[in-house]
């Protein structure tokens, strides 16, 4: 059971949250301009990183806000929590 810090509500139990997969994957602004392969890549393929991974969570049983986290996928350690629209710590990945 993870302990997750909502950027608004603070530390809460994992049971209050929903998982949203990899973060910073932007929906193509003009979907018609991307190829089928690019669209499929956007839809179905994640980076599946080992180590620090930027991912989205939603505080579904609390304030219903989406936010981002950096989590080490090998240790489950959260390195950071930050709000939507904020820059991820550590720059480009």
């Amino acid at each position, binding site marked *: *059971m993870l302990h997750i810090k909502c950027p608004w509500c603070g530390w809460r*139990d994992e049971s209050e949250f929903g998982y949203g997969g990899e973060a910073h994957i*932007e929906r193509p602004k003009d979907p018609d301009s991307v190829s089928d392969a690019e669209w499929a890549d956007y*839809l179905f393929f994640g980076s599946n990183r080992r180590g620090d991974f930027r991912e989205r969570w*939603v505080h579904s049983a609390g304030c219903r806000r*989406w936010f981002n986290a950096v989590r080490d996928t090998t*240790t489950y350690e959260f390195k950071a929590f930050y709000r939507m629209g904020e820059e991820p710590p550590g720059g480009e990945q």
Partner: protein
Amino acid sequence: MSQTKRLQSGGRIDRSKPLTFTFNGQSLQGYEGDTLASALLANGISLVSRSFKLHRPRGIMGAGAECPNSLVQVGRGAGTIPNLRATQTELYQGLEANSVNCWPSVKFDVNAVTGLFSPLLPAGFYYKTFKWPKSWWDKVYEPRIRKAAGFGKAPTEPDPDRYDKKNRHCDVLIVGAGPAGLAAALEAGRRGARVILCDEQNEFGGSLLANRQYLDGKPGIEWAKTAVAELESLEEVTLLARTTAFGHYHHGFVSLLERVTDHMGLTSPDGRPRQRQWRVRANQVVLATGAIERPLVFCNNDRPGIMPASAVSTYINRYGVRPGQRAVVFTNNDSAYQTALDLNDHGIDVAAIVDVRPESDSVLVDRARKEEIPIYGGYAVVDTRGGQHVSGVKVMRLNGRGDGVYGEIHHLDCDLVASSGGWNPVIHLHSHPGGTMRYDESIASFVPDQAVGNTYNAGACNGNFALGGCITEGLSAGATAAAGVGFGSEDIEGEAPATGKQQESPLRPMWRVPSRKAIPRAPKQFIDVQNDQTSADVYLAVREGYRSIEHIKRYTAMGFGTDQGKLGNINGAGIAAEALGEDIAKVGTTTFRPAYTPVTMGAFAGRELGPERFHAVRKTPMHKWHVDHGALFENVGDWKRPWYYPKPGESMREALDRESYQTRHAVGVLDASTLGKIDVRGPDAAEFLNRVYTSGWKTMEVGKARYGIMLSEDGMIMDDGVSARIAEDHYHMTTTTGGAARVLGHLEEYLQTEWPELQVYLTSTTDQWAAISLAGPHARDVVAKVVSGVDLSGGAFPFMTWRDCEAAGVPARLFRISFSGELGFEINVQANYGQYVWDAVWEAGQEYGITPYGTETMHILRAEKGFIIAGQDTDGSVNPMDFGMHGLLSKKKDYIGRRSLSRPDAMREDREQFVGLVTLEDPKEIIPEGAQLVEEPNANEAPKPVPLHGYVTSSYYSSTLGHSIALAMVKRGRERMDDVLYSPQADGRVIQCRITSPVFYDPKGERQNV
């Protein structure tokens, strides 16, 4: 004669409180403070079970969680508990226990003959044997193995006990209330931190309960008592005895199992739960879990009467039990000398201390010498003899390398062998979340290395076995943990009690005592006595090519038992290293995983049982009315929805026929309150709906409503519903009952993450509105009697519009919508008025023959019209084109999922398409929902695989049409009208059906537009 093996005095039992219990039908006595194991030993009973594979006799071996043998079935009937460890089962009046895994009896076990065939059951026999012939598996091997290998029996009746859960946060959780844990609790508790201290034992004190060490010049247990008294006085300290920390997860989450009333009887005597699972979120975790003595591994080391030395001391000192008359102590370290002294001091003859070390020099060794206990330095026990109990040992001289024995065989008679191969720190909880370990040569075992999170190890679990060191480490861990949450500094504030001088000589590592014969031919040297895994099995696994300790464990099944190898696994790793010719530090151990000791299923279920609490049960404002009117209910999501309302004597079919006839010919009323409702408001509300629905919403005028479908980004239908425009910037959206939360989450996700620039607020109003849906030719007549403030005429209030009004004097929204194909209205009022307005509608409808109808009739009526139900006719793999919904797909804008509709797979021409089906041979036959459809008339006989052409999604009997109808997805279905398909059934029947339009009734929609 009772308790013949009880010492005259001593022990932490209450001799003024005798307890009667039974074991295998025999009535016996013990005392309060006994475990079942100590009481059995006090009565001279040590043979308690049979081993799993060979059915060799097994005696009480350990004195706690590590005991691999003492599995018993406690009680009978509904409350019976299988596979309890007698060593951890507190005695209570009337306790009834039976051996497990020994049929027909523990003393006469026919399966013990398998011991004669044991060469046929080597390591890996699970994987190698019983493979051929195939038909023998069901008929011969499995029943035979099950009967022979059966552990305890699960009760067949519902568990009569209550179980509970508790979530608790704390600053510092301390696991283990021995000297280190108590010291840590004092240090952290005195500073005001919120502390939880738990221990699996019934009393706090840990090793101090069972040894005779002194602190501050008094017996150690006196110090422990004082510490506990002080901790009890601290308001923020929670003390949990009889509580095992069984799992340590990430971020300070630790699961504890508190046995609340297990010690009081078979079932909980009052309203308290029998067991409670604590789900602790600790900022800091101090592990003071102690160490488990590992036995030495020698030939025939599994006979009853052979025990770890510390267990012998525990039975003497803590329980006042004489575990034998004449003992041999066999050791590679100093600690077992204390056992020899404990035996000697209690008048139990110590035939010899056999020490694999040629020389040893320490306080304890000196005392043993002074007591004139014979010491065989540089010798080893190489074999034992005995039947159902050990009766003697063979002792030989050990060579300098420790890999061979020689010289004269000394035969020593004894009925007790106390063995010690050193101590293994209990690093289970340290390891659970990924804490690493390292091999410590000084103790020849693994100790914690890097801990995960704010976890600290203190005392014996950290490899520090000296009492003084344990307490100092405990104080230090308590200080560090408290400082970590802002209570003081990391400097120790408390004072450690004085301990005696504890000089020790080093141990001599010995994983396997050499035997006279080479391994395959030597008598069995047991590593795991519950699973009958021997050093020969480990050697065989290595010979067959296994290199990793994880593979060797799985091939041999070593440590697979209910004890999870607490006694044997490190020895197993050492013997594997020996067989591999590698260093044990490199071989390592297998992974420690929760649960530390077995946990009752009930403790995981807690109170989340039964139809009322297993999951949430949501009820509408009119729920009681439905109950009072005979409704049967259907679960839709968490909601209870009326399914249908049978009248007395009516069958389901009759009730459905009546409900749908009345609705089609008069008027029916449906509780639609469960539909999801979302208030959408803001300057960009119309734009937002345009992006989330497939159709256009900007041009829809205020006062109107429209059906819409939502897709996931992959183009598949996610949900559908009707949304109404309340104002220019304001919509009232409805979703399916089961999809409400998912849809709101989906919308918020896009709003917050993709389109934060859109000015839209979403608010769930599902529970705010009671929704009363009326359908049928008289719906308008009924509404007219209830509602005021609206011109209900078709011209003024056409289909798919809504109006503000009053219903029975209550402010209401009235929608003109229909899911049945009939003239339909839906009255929405604030939920607290729902029953009141429903009553008014019911009253008004009497003269028109109003009938309540449930979800089943609703499904039939909509299926007759070919309306889909998202989640029933869709399954996340179907897109709107599959349903012929091309008209709902706007070409003028982007929307979620649109791009995916032009992917090649979405455009495939042979996709399954939505059609209707009617049956041919028996027009009233209902094809089961989910049934597969094929072109082959004799699918059961045809070569496999038979190509599939589709499947049924909905299927009903339509009394309106006089025949059954089904909705289905069929390959190229729309171009195959009137084709015949076949649906083979599990019972061998084949149902013939013909493809039709999915709209069976009133295809022009004339009835709803009146």
